[in-house]
């Protein structure tokens, strides 16, 4: 259930260059919840001392052999399914970015740099250029780190209004302003005559529907499409305004940062996930790409009756949650509500024994809002920052490589393989994992290798028309 997305708001918030490593794949909680649910059904009395914050590890130790095998088999099956579910949006995002880079020259034209990368790369010596790009990358990464920590602090101290305001302003900026620029450049490229009134209508509709889909409710496909579009827009901005060496350095450093932030115990992203887990909340649906429908209502608002019923049956109730409040209102009541809920729960269903089950049931309910016959259907979530950085890598490869399409294709395959591996690791470890490091490493290695080694070789082969 928890996903990490955290950083996106920071850069969406008009500070064009911040990207956040919000990359986490987590279907972990989904998986762990399911496991817990399965376990609890079979052996209800065996987990009296399960931790309330539901660490998967404690359950794993108590699993019976047979349960473990069945779970693993399901895990693999769902792992395979998740691969498909994530390949398509990542591919789509990259395709959109590459198509735009190849056709609209605006995004490859150098029109200055952002204030976060003040040092220019047009220097006389290579050493100076290297130094400047290192400084640029350092500034950018520190801004990102500061913003992440700020976000975690805000989240910890329950300043939900601030976070939501920030998110809304960022998505407003992306959906209206950036798409207006994008549309304008596309029209310029294809020499399409257009009047302001039509453009205003188009952008208004696009933006408003986007805001509704992302921040409130909307058809799953539409929400996914919008998330892909804003990721692509953001990636294009980065490709345009980041100079070459700076971009590669930032990509490398950000995957290291992602690794550290997610896996270290004191990492900000890990703290974010754990806090969200403790509070039993979803994180910022506006920043996570989810492959299944996620209700934006606060799960704790559900009818305690439903919780009890669900925890008693092994199947999930498909009842829709009682109130579908707006995300902002719901979130604002989080702090107080959770305590009430806890009291109610304590009164009605009694303490700790039920906690894993009811928690599993409650967390499972929203995820199953799609009418799926398969009660164990789980989605996987990928942060939007991942989409953005993957697309930045592939976009930069297609914009600046001498090998052109070969390099782009190689980076594309490398990123997909990295994603595959990360999903595999996710299925094995069942906790939130950073999605950037493996893919970006493969992508960078393949970019430089293909551009410098493979391209001359393929060129010569094509010249002589030899085939390998």
């Amino acid at each position, binding site marked *: 259930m928890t996903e990490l997305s955290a950083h996106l708001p920071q850069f969406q918030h008009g500070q064009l260059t911040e990207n956040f490593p919000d990359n986490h794949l987590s279907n972990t909680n989904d998986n762990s919840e399911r496991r817990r649910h399965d376990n609890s059904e079979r052996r209800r009395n065996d987990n009296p001392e399960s931790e309330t914050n539901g660490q998967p590890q404690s359950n794993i130790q108590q699993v019976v052999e047979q349960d473990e095998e069945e779970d693993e088999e399901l895990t693999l*099956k769902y792992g395979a399914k998740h691969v498909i579910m994530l390949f398509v949006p990542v591919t789509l995002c990259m395709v959109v970015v590459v198509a735009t880079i190849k056709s609209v020259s605006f995004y490859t034209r150098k029109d200055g740099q952002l204030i976060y990368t003040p040092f220019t790369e047009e220097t006389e010596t290579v050493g100076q250029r290297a130094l400047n790009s290192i400084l640029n990358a350092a500034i950018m990464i520190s801004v990102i780190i500061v913003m992440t920590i700020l976000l975690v602090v805000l989240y910890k101290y329950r300043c939900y209004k601030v976070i939501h305001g920030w998110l809304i302003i960022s998505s407003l900026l992306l959906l209206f302003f950036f798409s207006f620029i994008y549309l304008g450049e596309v029209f310029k490229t294809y020499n399409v005559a257009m009047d302001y009134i039509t453009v205003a209508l188009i952008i208004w509709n696009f933006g408003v529907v986007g805001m509704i889909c992302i921040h409130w409710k909307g058809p799953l496909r539409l929400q996914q499409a919008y998330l892909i579009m804003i990721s692509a827009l953001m990636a294009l901005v980065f490709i345009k305004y980041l100079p070459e060496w700076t971009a590669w350095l930032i990509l490398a450093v950000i995957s290291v940062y992602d690794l550290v932030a997610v896996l270290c115990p004191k990492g900000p992203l890990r703290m974010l996930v754990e806090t969200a887990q403790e509070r039993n909340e979803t994180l910022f649906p506006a920043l996570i790409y989810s492959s299944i429908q996620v209700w934006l209502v606060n799960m704790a608002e559900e009818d305690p009756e439903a919780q009890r019923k669900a925890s008693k049956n092994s199947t999930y109730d498909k009842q829709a949650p009682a109130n579908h409040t707006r995300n902002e209102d719901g979130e604002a009541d989080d702090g107080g509500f959770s305590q009430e809920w806890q009291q109610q729960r304590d009164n009605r269903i009694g303490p700790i024994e039920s906690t894993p089950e009811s928690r599993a049931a409650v967390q499972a309910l929203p995820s199953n809002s799609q009418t799926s016959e398969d009660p164990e259907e789980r989605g996987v979530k990928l942060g939007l920052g991942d989409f953005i950085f993957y697309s930045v890598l592939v976009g930069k490869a297609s914009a600046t490589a001498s090998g052109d399409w070969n390099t782009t294709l190689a980076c594309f395959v490398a990123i997909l*393989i990295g994603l595959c591996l990360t999903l595999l690791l996710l299925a094995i470890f069942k906790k939130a994992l950073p999605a950037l490091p493996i893919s970006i490493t493969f992508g960078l290695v393949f970019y430089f290798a293909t551009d410098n080694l493979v391209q001359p*070789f393929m060129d010569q082969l094509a010249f002589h028309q*030899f*085939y390998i």
Partner: protein
Amino acid sequence: PARGLAQRGASRCSLSCRAFFWLVSLLLSSLIWFIAVKASDPHDKPLQKGLLIFGVMFSVLLQEAFRFLYYKLLRKAIEGLVALSEDGCSPISIQQMAYVAGVGFGLMSGAFSMINLLADALGPGTVGIHGDSQLYFLTSAFMTMVLIFLHTFWGILFFHGCEHRRWGEITAVVVMHLAVSGSTFCNPLYVGSLVPSYLLMAAAAAWAYLLSGGSAQNLRRFLLCKS
């Protein structure tokens, strides 16, 4: 249904894995070629051509080696899946994997050969204006197509050979690959490269079909639309 999904997921993953393996083999072979070129005199044309030929042969051998490595990886994966599945049979058979693997290799190889050409074909220009062959794009297209098909069939043959320990099949695949690549050395004399390649493709197709359990009877039944 879950099985079907696992199958699709496994094939997609396998396809990209296969593409990745081909890419790595290409990378390594171009690394070797690059080193050789840098270590030699760039103005010596015959030497450069000789080095290129060496690069091509080495690349072919490396591709086949990676195909073998991929086979080993798939074997392990399928064993793992079989061990975990309820009814003792894996959701995807080795033949299907062989086919997907072959297609993956072929697609990647074809894409890499063709895509820059296609991009250039979109732009302005005249084919063969400096006296080269005017059929460049056409023959490239045919050559790429035959290679993709060949990779698919070779995948099936190779995996079958590995499964049943028939070294004859494996060596046949390697020799065929070397032959096809070698035949392209007589380009732009396209008769020398395209015709043998297509003949080899027909032979490989028939062989792969027979190995996959087909027969002349099946074919006749299929063509005459009998059930």
